[in-house]
């Protein structure tokens, strides 16, 4: 993902490190440099039309959160929260590849997300 791109209409085409995972591919694509992530909405969070993504292992949670926020066109005042293992928030600096190693199953990492108003 280009960290410079601020366009709210940025699509996954602009972001080679986060790609729509084709259904035939497993986590073994691209010499295992990417892992499959399944995004699930909780609470009032909008549901993503595309739920399954191939993400580079080195991508951070923060970077993924930014991508999801832009994809969902969240307001600047809305905060996205991401949970792994249902109820644990990984550090924003954590790499998704590490999360996959710890919590991945059936070749994918399930991440839940929700949004809330800004704190304060």
């Amino acid at each position, binding site marked *: 993902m280009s960290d410079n791109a601020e366009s709210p209409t940025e699509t996954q085409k602009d972001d080679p490190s986060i790609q729509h995972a084709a259904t035939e591919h497993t986590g073994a694509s691209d010499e295992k440099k990417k892992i499959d992530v399944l995004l699930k909405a909780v609470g009032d969070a909008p549901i993503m039309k595309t739920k399954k993504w191939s993400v580079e292992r080195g991508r951070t949670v*923060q970077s993924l959160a930014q991508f999801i926020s832009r994809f969902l066109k969240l307001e*600047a005042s809305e905060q996205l929260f991401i*949970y792994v293992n*249902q109820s*644990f928030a990984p550090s924003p*600096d954590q790499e998704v590849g590490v*999360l996959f190693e710890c919590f991945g199953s059936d070749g994918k990492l399930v991440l839940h997300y929700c949004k*809330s108003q800004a*704190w*304060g």
Partner: protein
Amino acid sequence: MMAAERNTVSCYLDEKTFRLCCQRFLQHSETIQDGWSWEQIKGTDEGFMKKTLLIPVKSSILNKQHECSIQDENMETDDIQANVEDETAGVQAVCEIHAVLRYEYHVLYSFSYQIPVLYFRASTLDGRPLSLEEVWSNVHPNYRQRLQQGPWDTLTQQEHPLLGQPFFMLHPCRTEEFMKPALDLAQAENKRVNYIVTWLSVVGPVVRLDVPLSYSTEVSAPD
């Protein structure tokens, strides 16, 4: 949206469960040497969890007037990376010198909110307390923009309820917004969560306190 019925779980935490969650949290901290301890207030049965961290930061987050002393402190270390583009330009303009800050975190139980609250204080290594502005600069970028939308009741300076000293505090009023989804999710899977683990995993990183992943799998909820 989902039309499925949800049994909502209370986001409140009673004090006894707070202590039990902390006990289990602390056991794991001990196992992985994560540095947490329980501090009991003498003569009472009140206490809190405490951890101190040394955090390297760019000295640019510190007020300019203090930068000189930080630079002198670090002159002898190997961490200095001078990237001076113009020799005649002021060093402060382009140098990226790292400073080390001392953050002390306290996890307290709030009787009025019936949830845990994160207090912390921050200082430079020579003991100078950080200003609110400096602490703000050090909020994790992932949260900084949204927090700044309404800073006054989010990150505030408060007197520590048990120690009576000035601390910073992350206001607990929005706790439900991020706890509720996690608690509901767990309940949907018939799992119980350790409230403190879930709660701290969300609030900690905001102020540079990371909770290692192993807490998520190794710390159980109290019965």
